[in-house]
C-alpha cells in the first residue's frame, strides 16, 4: 500500500490494517517524528499567539482612545446619568484615580505591563477587577458557544448526510437550506424562536437565565446559521468524497449506502467543518452579544456592550484580549485535531 502525500491531492482512503509486526515497527519509527511535528507546530503557534494577543490588546486600547470625547467625562456622566460637559474640578479626582492625565504612551505602557502579570485593571464603573468581572460572566458565554457549536454539528451532520449526493431535487433543496440558514441574522432568528417556542408554545422560558431549559433557544439561534455555514463546505467535500475510489471499493465490498456515508464519507467530509469550528468559537462569542441581549442571558457579550457604551476601557480591552486568546488557542487545537483526523496528514 502506497500512501500518497497530501500535496498530491489524491486521497486513497484509510490505509488497511497492516500486519501486527510491521505496524508496530512503523509506529515506533513514526511516533517521534509526529511528536516533533506537533511540538514544532505548537511552538510556532505560541509565538504567533503572543504577537496576535499583543496586536489585539493594542488595537483595542487605541480604538477605545479614539472614541470621541473625554474618558473622565464619560465615567462621571455614566455614574450620574447625565450627558454633559464637566468642569476640570469635577474631573480631577477621576483623572487622578485612573491615571488619565498621564501621556497616552505611559498609559499604554502601564496597561501592557499589567497584562503581562495578568492584571487587566479595575472597571471604571463597577470598581472591581476586570478579571473578576470576566471570570463571573465567562462561564455562561462559553457554555452557550460550545452548546451552539455542538448543535450546529448535529444539525449539519444530519442534514448533509441526508441530502448530499442524492438526486438533483434533494441536493438542490439541501443546498438551498444551507444558504438560507447561513444567511439568517441572529437578531431576527432569535426573536422568531422566542416568539414561537417561548411565547407561543411555552416550551421554553422567555427570559433564559442560566438554566438548561434557558440554553436551548439561544444556542439554536447561534447554531442554525453556523450549521448552514458549515454545511456549505462539508457538502462540497461530501459529494467529492462520494466519487472517490475508496467509496467505490467499499460499495464493491457490499457495504450499504448509509454505512458508506457515515463510516467513510462523513469522516472525510467533515475536515473543513473541524477547521471552521475554530472560527465558530470566535463567531459564537461575537454572536453572543446579540443573543444574550435578546434572551436576557448573562455573559461577556452583554458585559461588553455595557462596557463599550460607558467607555469602560479596562473591561473592553480585557474582553477583546480574552476573545483573542480563545481564537488563538482553539485554532491551535483545531490544527492538532486536523492532523489527527486526516490520515494523509498523519502519514506526513
Amino acid at each position, binding site marked *: 500500500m502506497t500512501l500518497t502525500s497530501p500535496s498530491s491531492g489524491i486521497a486513497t482512503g484509510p490505509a488497511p490494517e497492516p500486519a501486527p509486526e510491521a505496524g508496530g515497527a512503523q509506529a515506533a519509527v513514526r511516533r517521534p517524528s509526529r511528536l516533533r511535528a506537533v511540538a514544532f507546530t505548537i511552538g510556532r503557534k505560541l509565538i504567533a499567539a503572543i504577537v496576535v494577543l499583543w496586536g489585539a490588546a493594542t488595537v483595542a486600547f487605541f480604538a477605545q482612545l479614539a472614541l*470621541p470625547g473625554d474618558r473622565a467625562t464619560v465615567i462621571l456622566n455614566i*455614574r450620574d*446619568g447625565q450627558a*454633559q*460637559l*464637566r468642569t476640570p474640578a469635577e474631573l480631577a479626582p477621576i483623572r487622578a484615580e485612573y491615571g488619565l492625565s498621564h501621556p497616552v504612551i505611559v498609559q499604554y505602557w502601564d496597561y501592557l505591563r499589567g497584562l503581562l502579570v495578568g492584571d487587566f485593571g479595575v472597571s471604571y464603573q463597577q470598581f472591581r477587577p476586570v478579571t473578576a468581572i470576566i471570570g463571573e*460572566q465567562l462561564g455562561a458565554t462559553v457554555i452557550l458557544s460550545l452548546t451552539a457549536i455542538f448543535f450546529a454539528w448535529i444539525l449539519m451532520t444530519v442534514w448533509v448526510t441526508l441530502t448530499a449526493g442524492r438526486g438533483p431535487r434533494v441536493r438542490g433543496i439541501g443546498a438551498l437550506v444551507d444558504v438560507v440558514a447561513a444567511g439568517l441574522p441572529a437578531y431576527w432568528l432569535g426573536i422568531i424562536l422566542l*416568539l414561537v417556542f417561548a411565547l407561543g408554545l411555552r416550551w421554553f422560558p422567555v427570559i433564559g437565565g442560566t438554566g438548561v431549559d434557558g440554553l436551548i433557544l439561544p444556542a439554536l439561534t447561534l447554531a442554525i446559521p453556523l450549521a448552514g455555514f458549515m454545511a456549505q463546505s462539508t457538502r462540497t467535500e461530501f459529494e467529492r468524497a462520494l466519487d472517490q475510489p475508496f467509496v467505490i471499493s467499499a460499495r464493491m465490498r457490499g457495504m450499504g449506502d448509509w454505512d458508506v456515508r457515515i463510516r467513510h464519507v462523513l469522516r472525510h467530509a467533515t475536515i473543513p467543518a473541524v477547521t471552521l469550528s475554530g472560527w465558530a468559537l470566535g463567531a459564537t462569542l461575537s454572536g453572543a452579544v446579540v443573543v444574550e441581549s435578546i434572551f436576557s442571558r448573562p455573559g461577556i457579550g452583554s458585559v461588553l456592550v455595557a462596557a463599550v457604551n460607558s467607555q469602560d476601557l479596562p473591561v473592553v480591552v480585557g474582553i477583546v484580549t480574552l476573545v483573542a486568546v480563545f481564537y488563538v488557542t482553539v485554532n491551535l487545537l483545531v490544527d492538532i485535531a486536523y492532523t489527527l483526523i486526516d490520515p494523509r496528514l498523519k502519514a506526513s
Partner: protein
Amino acid sequence: MRLSRISLATVALVSALTLTACAATTASSTGAAVDGGTIVYAHQQEPACVFGGWIEQAYLSYQVLDNLVSLDANHKVVPWLATSWKSSTDGLTWTFTLKKGVKFTDGTPVDAAAVAYNFDYWLKGGNSTAAVWLGGYYQSAKAVSATTLQVNLSKPYPRLVDNLTQGYFGIQSEHALTTRTKDQNCASPIGSGAFIVKKWNRGQDIVLTRNNKYTSWPANALHTGPAHVKVIDWKFVADPTTRVAALQAGQVNAIYDVPAVQWKTLKTSGFQLDRYVTPGRPQQISFNTQLGPFTDEKLRQAFAYSLNRKQIVDTIGQGIIPSEGNGGVSQATPGYSKKAADWYSYNPSKANALLDAAGWTGRTSAGVRTKDGKPLTVILPYGAGSIINADGAAILQGVKEQASKVGFDVTLIPVPQSELFAGKYGTPQDHDISVGYWTAVTAGILYINWRPSTASNPNYSNSAYYNNPELEGYILGGNSAPTVAAQNADYEKAQNYIAQHALAIGVYDRLSTLAVSPKLKDVWQEHAQGGPTFYDAYFTK
C-alpha cells in the same frame, strides 16, 4: 408561489400562537393574601452600582435605603426616617428630628451623626446629582443630639425637603461607607430599608431579601412592619418585547417601561397598568442661543409654530404619552404654567411669516429656506436608546417632517451612549437643538437648567447656552420665596419668559410605567420619581 404560501402559513402560525398566548395569560386571583413569596420584576437597564446619581439607581436604592422624608400622592412631604422638621425664620437652618431606635442592617444606629455624614458624602462625590441639588445652598450638617440633625444653608431654600424625597438622598450606614471597599458599597449599600441586597448576578439580576427587622417605613406606606414578600428578584431585561412576553407568559410578576403599543393589549388581558408622569424637565427641545440660526428669536418662534406637537405625540404615543407644550417643566410639576405650555400652537402661516421677516426668503430645489445662499439646516443630535427611547425617536422624526414643511432642514443624529456621555454635542459649536429631560419634584429644576454659565462657575446643564439675569432672578426668587404661592408665581414667570423668547419648547412628558400581574397586589409607584415600590406588595392565591 410555493415559498409565498409557506411564508403566509408561517405568519399565520406565529400570529395564532401569539394570540393564543395573550389570551391564555390572565389567570384570575381569588383575592386571599399570601405571606411571603418572590416577586420577579423585569427592569430595562442595569446600573453599575445600586446607589448613585442616575434615576435607574434611585429606583433600585429606594428598595434598600430609607430617606429622611417621603412624598405622598398629593405632593405632600411626609415623615420617613425623620418624624418632623422645621426651618428657622430666616430659612437658613433646618432641624430634623429622627425616629428613635432605627438601625442600619449592619447593626449601627441611624442617628443624626450618620445622616450628617451622608450629606457631606453626597457633596464630596458620593452622589453628584444630590450634590447638584444641594449646590449653592448647602453649607453644613451636624448632629445636635442623637436624634436631632441640623442642616445649615447659605441661602433660604424652602423646598429643600421636597428634594430630599428623591432616591439620590437615601441614607447609608456611615460605618459601612467608611470601613467597606468602594466595590462593596457599590454592589450592596447598607441602609435601613425594607430589603437587603443579597446577591448581584451581573448581567442577570439582583436578589433582594426582606429586612425582617424593618422598623422605619414611610408615613405614606400602606402597611407597617416588614415587607410582605420575602424576596425580590430584580431582573434586567433590556428588550421591551421580551419583558412584555415574559409577563404574559407568567415568568415575571411585574415589568417596567411598557411600550405604548402594548398598553391596551395588557390592559385588556387584566394586568394592572400604572403610569407616572415625571415632574421636572420634560422631554423638550432647547435652542442654541449662542451660535447658529437660532440666535435669532424669530427663527426659534418659527420652529415652534411649525410643529403640531400634540398630533405627533398622540399619534406615536397612542394616547399613553402626554404631549407637553411647556419647555421649562412638565405638567406634573408644582408651579406649572399652562400659559407657557399654550404659547405656541400649530400655525405654519405664522412660522412662514417669521422666517420671511428674518430674511430666510430663498428656497433650494428641495424646499429648504436659504439666506444669502446658505440653507436653513439645523443639527439635532439625540441620545438614542439612552435619553430618547424608541417612541421618542419616532416623535423626533415627526418633528423633522413637520418643520421641513416651512423650510427647516432638520438633521437628526442618533448619538450612541458612549459618545453622548463623553460630552460630544456638549458645546454651542456642534449643534443647534438639544433634547432631553431631567426628573425633579419641584420647579427648582429650572435653576439647574437655566443658571447662567460663567467662566468661574460654568453650567453645562444650561443646554440653551442662555445666560440672562432676568430669568435667573425669577428662578432664584422662586427657590427662596417663603410661601408656596409666591414660589409658584416666580417659577411661572420663569416658564413664561422661556416660552416668550422660545428658548425651549416642550414635546412630551417622560413617563415611568409599570405592568403588574393580577396576582400581585399593592405595587405602587413612589411619588418622587415613579419607581416601583414593593414594600407593600403581596401575592394572592
